[in-house]
């Protein structure tokens, strides 16, 4: 008789499985877990800590907070950050001072480990939440973070 009870129990487990998928089938209209990307581009909001790419915020006077201390360059494991700097004469004090010329960021090499942002003593760089990073040519992935003509925000070094 175990032959028939085996069949009965087997069919029962199969029907139980079908009831699970059947339940989701009936609730499919409101239960879709997928996102309609890129239709929802306009409304898609990432979390505030999301690591999209490294940016350097500038204020309205085109001033940033980077002193060119190169701590981020040292902290970076992949060499994604290069800082080109030189010593220029500060017009206010008249002394020679280290100033950044270009803060170069290679997005293509970046692994989003956040070590540079942790290392920055003046909070000059931070994460941006955009994730649409695909470009047609990988040279576009090399970015200069400080805007042309920008200068150091006064009071950062104190």
């Amino acid at each position: 008789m175990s032959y028939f009870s085996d069949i009965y129990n087997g069919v029962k487990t199969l029907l139980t499985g079908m009831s699970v998928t059947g339940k989701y089938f009936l609730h499919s209209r409101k239960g879709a877990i997928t996102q309609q990307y890129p239709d929802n581009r306009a409304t898609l909001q990432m979390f505030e800590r999301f690591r999209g790419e490294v940016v350097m915020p500038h204020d309205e006077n085109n001033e940033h907070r980077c002193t060119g201390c190169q701590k981020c360059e040292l902290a970076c494991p992949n060499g994604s950050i290069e800082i080109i700097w030189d010593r220029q004469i500060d017009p206010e004090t008249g002394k020679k001072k280290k100033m950044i010329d270009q803060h170069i960021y290679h997005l293509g090499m970046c692994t989003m480990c956040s070590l540079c942002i942790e290392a920055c003593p003046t909070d000059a760089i931070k994460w941006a939440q955009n994730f649409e990073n695909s470009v047609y040519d990988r040279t576009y992935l090399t970015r200069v973070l400080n805007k042309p003509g920008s200068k150091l925000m006064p009071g950062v070094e104190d």
Partner: protein
Amino acid sequence: MNITKNIHEWLFSLMPATTASIVEMVLIAVVYLGIFAVAGLYLVLLERKVAAWFQLRLGPNRVGYQGLLQTMADALKLVSKELTGTIKADKFLYNLAPYFVIITALMAISLFPFTQEFQAFDINIGIFFLIAISSIGVIGILLAGWSSNNKFALIGAMRSGVQTISYELSVGLSLLTMVLMTGSLQLSQIVEVQKHGWLIVQGHIPAVIAFMIYMIAGTAETNRAPFDLVEAESELGAGFHTEYSGMKFAYFFLAEFINMFIIASIATTVFFGAYLSPFGITENIPLLGVFWFLIKTLAIIFLMMWFRWTFPRLRIDQLLVLEWKYLLPLNLMNLIIMALMVLLGLTIQF
């Protein structure tokens, strides 16, 4: 139907009888090809939609309204794709194989009584012919697997051979159980008998068992999950059609869905009274028969899709154990019970 009769008379009045009948045959073939293509394409879409709803997704919804043109676009893509193949493939058989599969599927579809008159080919050995035709398709699969000179494809083809030969028995026997009640293999006759109640009602318990066995064996016949060992994506990549691309792949793909339609249509005809409406509510409008036929067929197709998106795949030895140790003995027993019932007049008739 009057339209078909009118066309028939008009054709024969226009030209000599031989030419007219040839033209008529071509016309019928074109109509059936149309049905075939549309049914195939929309079954693909239905499968994708149903799968999506089972899997908490939305399914294709970009091309056309709610994705209605999606499979058209896919077919267009497949037609325009380059045909590639392996160098060491047996070219003749490799190219022949898809046609075997698709033509047998097309031939089978000509038998179904969509309404009382909408039936292209009503021979007196209907069921027998259907079973015979549907098992020729496996030759195409065997040829495809063998000729493409790929080990994965070969394993898939061999599995297909084993599987079809085994499950052919169950399909045949379960249909034979029902034929005991009708006393005829002709499909129009089978439907005629069901005017006194669908066969699944007439035959009650043994008929339900026969239907369950038929569904299992039918799913195996079409090589669909949980019996998709022939393709077994996670084991063999794509199985027998690993080396096919473009339109030739599309033939296999379409044939799979047409076969599903055929299996469901046979079930509709034999168990659920084909075009007959439930309790005879629309018997006076014969055109609605198509509607009832399709509704029943789609319900059975949905059941097969439900199987596919719920169950894991069997292993090849379990597949054979299921057939030879469970389905076949049950089927034989069921056949004897049915024979006794028919003999003693225990069937229910209205």
